[in-house]
């Protein structure tokens, strides 16, 4: 999964997810650093263990060499062997003689730290202890494996071993008088001496020897047990003379060693590791200082772990490791945080960019217009699906080729101008924007009229990059529709003109016969008394009424048809004072038994005076014609100005019009009363036509006492 894909996941856009990821990485880093720190510490402590073990081993081995020299140069002498041989044969004076002979040697051994010199018989009896002259003849084989091995296997043995008087490092050599095995001699070094030697070898360290309680208690003379005490760190082990009862006791543990022991007491690892007989070191922090306590197991000659050498050494490197750990942790924390912040921001920007790209791609793929991107050389670098849909050219056929040569033609004969003369390319190449209509050729060779919009692509500084994006729309159908509409409009105008002319001619030519028809009908009516037949008289009255009605219809139709003509002719005189027009009407028209109330202030509207008069005439005729039979007619005329328009209300108390017929009454020849009632059904149609001509509106609402209100909304005169 690539980085881009990763950022498609919406989760990565959330800071919380990044914070959790940072925490996880930080935890992982912490674990790695911690493990590295632990490894370094363990390595460092292992070095301490190695140093302690080496110091111990070198010291013990150096004493082995010293005792070997001692035995070779001071014991295996003929005189010594001779006395010892007489002694083991039972000569009573031999023991004293042997003691006196070797006493000076023993003094020198004491100076070297070899505190014990001990002869044993071949049977394992103590013959002469230089360090405990009053104790002799006690059997040793059971408690001193080194003596047993040296005398039974007749070989040199050395190693740590607990003894009847004390514990120490034993170096036991078999002694022979010729081929006769006499017994053995043992030089023993107390831990006190080993410790002093180790401190000489490693002066920066302190050492302690702790002995396994079980071993000591099974081996020592009973009286000597009191010289041992439990080791505070691990009660399974004993230390020699913890209360410093003896004047030549080793120096007491330093205050630091006591502090370190105090800390070790609280560490379970000490007991478990000692129980397992491991060589190990532990870090101890006391008094603000770091110490390494190293434990080196001591094995006796049988391989049994019987004691531990404990080394105490200052370990400043541990403090440095801790400091390094903290520094690295801080550094890693800072670096990780920075990296994550940067990665988050980068990721967010990438995500935003990808989202933008996706959005653009979606738009690109969705829009119905064809779109292509052109580089500085006119080669197409990108097209959208609509491009293929419109021109039939696939992406593989277009990308990398010069678009102009491929699909842009100058005319429907397929002429292709050079690229430099391409209006699209040359315009955007100069950094300009091109909008216009062009002809594109499809893959099948069809020519399409297209509307083209092309813009250069700018860099971040606003300079043209040379590339451009061009969108185009197939307008072939629209162009055809426009042409068709234009043709139909011309035909309609022509037809309307002809119809208008026909109407005018017809009404003009109808007017004369109708007038004559009315005239003759009235003439016959005047002769009606001559006619006795009632049916004939009634027929004549019918002819008269219908002739009069036809006359009215012709008149009103003529007025209606003349209206547009008159509107066009009177464009220059487009305003009239409503009050003046109404007064003129009322002066010439007698409406019997009626009260006409005009508001004091009526506006001047942008309507030709004749048309305004026709409108008011039609409205007032209707009010008079359809007055309520039970009450006198009352008409109230008022007006208000609203946003450049006048709302003129003509309210009557007539018979009224049901709401469902209030739109219908504006249609031509619509009448809501029987044909016997006078009227042509063209009055309100005429009103609506005039109102629409001036951009106004008209509607009917409820009037007074069940009557109607005709509300005319007309434009006010612009410059009264």
């Amino acid at each position, binding site marked *: 999964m690539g980085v881009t894909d990763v950022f498609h996941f919406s989760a990565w856009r959330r800071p919380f997810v990044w914070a959790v990821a940072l925490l996880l990485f930080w935890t992982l880093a912490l674990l790695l650093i911690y493990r590295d720190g632990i490894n370094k510490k363990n390595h460092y402590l292992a070095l301490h263990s190695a140093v302690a073990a080496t110091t111990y081993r070198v010291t013990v081995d150096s004493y082995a060499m010293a005792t070997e020299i001692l035995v070779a140069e001071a014991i295996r002498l003929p005189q010594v062997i001779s006395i010892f041989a007489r002694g083991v044969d039972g000569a*009573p*004076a031999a*023991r*004293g*003689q042997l*003691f*006196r002979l070797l*006493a000076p040697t023993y003094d020198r051994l004491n100076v070297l730290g070899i505190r014990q010199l001990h002869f044993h018989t071949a049977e394992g009896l103590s013959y002469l202890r230089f360090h*405990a*002259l*009053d104790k*002799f003849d006690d059997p040793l084989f059971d408690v001193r494996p080194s003596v047993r091995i040296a005398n039974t296997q007749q070989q040199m043995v050395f190693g740590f071993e607990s003894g009847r*008087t*004390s514990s120490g490092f034993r170096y036991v050599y078999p002694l022979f008088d010729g081929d006769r095995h006499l017994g053995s001699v043992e030089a023993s070094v107390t831990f006190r001496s080993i410790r002093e030697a180790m401190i000489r070898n490693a002066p920066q360290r302190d050492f302690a020897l702790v002995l396994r309680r079980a071993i000591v208690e099974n081996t020592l*003379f*009973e*009286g*000597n*047990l*009191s*010289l041992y005490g439990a080791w505070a760190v691990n009660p399974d082990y004993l230390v020699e003379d913890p*209360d410093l*009862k*003896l*004047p*030549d006791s080793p120096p007491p543990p330093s205050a630091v060693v006591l502090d370190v022991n105090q800390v070790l007491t609280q560490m379970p690892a000490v007991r478990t590791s000692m129980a397992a007989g491991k060589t190990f070191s532990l870090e101890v922090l006391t008094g603000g200082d770091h110490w390494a306590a190293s434990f080196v197991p001591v094995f006796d000659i049988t391989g049994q772990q019987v004691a531990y050498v404990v080394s105490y050494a200052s370990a400043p490197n541990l403090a440095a490791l801790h400091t390094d750990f903290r520094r690295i942790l801080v550094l890693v924390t800072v670096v990780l945080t920075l990296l994550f912040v940067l990665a988050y921001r980068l990721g967010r920007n990438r995500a935003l960019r990808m989202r933008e790209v996706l959005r653009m791609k979606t738009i690109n793929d969705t829009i119905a217009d064809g779109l292509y991107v052109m580089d500085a050389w006119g080669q197409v670098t990108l097209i959208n699906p609509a491009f293929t849909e419109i021109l039939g050219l696939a992406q593989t056929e277009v990308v990398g080729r010069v678009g102009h040569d491929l699909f842009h033609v100058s005319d429907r004969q397929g002429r292709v101008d050079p690229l430099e003369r391409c209006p699209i390319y040359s315009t955007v190449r100069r950094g300009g924007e091109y909008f216009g209509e062009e002809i594109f050729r499809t893959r099948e060779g069809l020519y399409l009229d297209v509307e083209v919009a092309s813009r250069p692509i700018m860099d971040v500084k606003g300079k043209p990059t040379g590339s451009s994006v061009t969108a185009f729309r197939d307008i072939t159908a629209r162009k055809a529709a426009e042409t068709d509409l234009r043709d139909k409009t011309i035909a309609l105008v022509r037809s309307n003109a002809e119809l208008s002319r026909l109407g005018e001619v017809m009404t003009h030519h109808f007017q004369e016969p109708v007038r004559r028809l009315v005239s003759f009908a009235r003439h016959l009516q005047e002769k009606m008394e001559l006619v006795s037949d009632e049916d004939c008289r009634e027929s004549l009255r019918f002819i008269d009424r219908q002739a009069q009605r036809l006359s009215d219809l012709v008149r009103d139709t003529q007025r209606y048809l003349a209206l547009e003509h008159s509107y066009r002719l009177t464009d220059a005189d487009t305003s009239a004072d409503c009050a003046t027009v109404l007064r003129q009407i009322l002066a010439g028209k007698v409406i019997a038994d009626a009260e006409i109330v005009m508001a004091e202030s009526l506006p001047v509207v942008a309507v030709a005076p004749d048309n305004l008069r026709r409108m008011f005439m039609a409205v007032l005729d209707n009010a008079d014609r359809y007055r309520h039979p039970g009450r006198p007619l009352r008409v109230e005329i008022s007006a208000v100005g609203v946003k450049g328009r006048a709302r003129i209300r003509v309210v009557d108390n007539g018979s009224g019009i049901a709401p469902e017929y209030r739109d219908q009454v504006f249609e031509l020849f619509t009448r809501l009363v029987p044909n016997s009632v006078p009227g042509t059904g063209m009055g309100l149609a005429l009103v609506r036509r005039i109102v629409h001509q001036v951009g106004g509106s008209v509607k009917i609402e409820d009037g007074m006492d069940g009557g109607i209100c005709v509300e005319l909304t007309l434009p006010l005169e612009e410059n009264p």
Partner: protein
Amino acid sequence: MMSPHVRRFLTLVRSYLLLTAVLMVLTVPVLAQPLKFAPLPMEAPETVAGQWRPLLDYLSRALGRDIQLSYFSSYQEIVEKFIAGELDLAFFGPLPYVRLKEQFAAARPVVLFNEADGHATYTCSIVALAEGNLDLGTLRGHNIALTQPLSTCGYLSADWMLHRAGSDLENNHYRYLGTHDAVAVAVARGAFDAGCLKTAIGRKYAHLGLVEIAETEQLPALGLVANGDRLPEPLIDQIRQLLIHADPATHAGWGDNIRHGAVGATDEDFEPVREWMRGFEIPLQGNF
């Protein structure tokens, strides 16, 4: 009104309670502190410490108090610490005790420890190598090893035995070596012609060729001395009874010099020694 008798009674009760409280306050710290004991440095420190620890543990358990062992290499130093009130108990021979008593009246003999023969007495001897054939009567110009000035088996016994044989310690070279062991070893290795030490200790080195060429009369055995200024008499007596009546199986586990039981001691037990050393001057340094 309270009667005078009742008032006196209450006053008496109050005084008694106050006194009891004061005594408790004064004695509790004493009881709580460990007892301090010093053995005589007759033998090697390890040996001495090993010999005494079982006995001290026995007393400690019985008394319910810890007992600390403090080793001093000089008899004189022990006497000084005792007088200074820094010790509660000490193991002394007759001479050191008499000298201590002269300077510190509060020293209280507690017990004398029996020797191996079951008696609370012991002897000192002059030892020499058997092969030396030393004649005490004509002893002159020889090197004599002594323990310490205040040791009963030191200058006092050596000089007494030489005079008894017709000789004089001052006609010989003598040197204080500290412990009886050191004297025995020094003679056994031939560094000294003779030495004076406790007979029982000298016999432990017989296998090296040491022989006794003179021996003193029976002397009061070494014993335990208490500091009467620091320990109340009942406690001293309790210690005495504990040691006298210790089970034989118990005291058999104690050190060589103290494992054969004990008897009660009084200051009168040391009267012969006091009489013996009356007017006797012991040089504090050897003469070579």
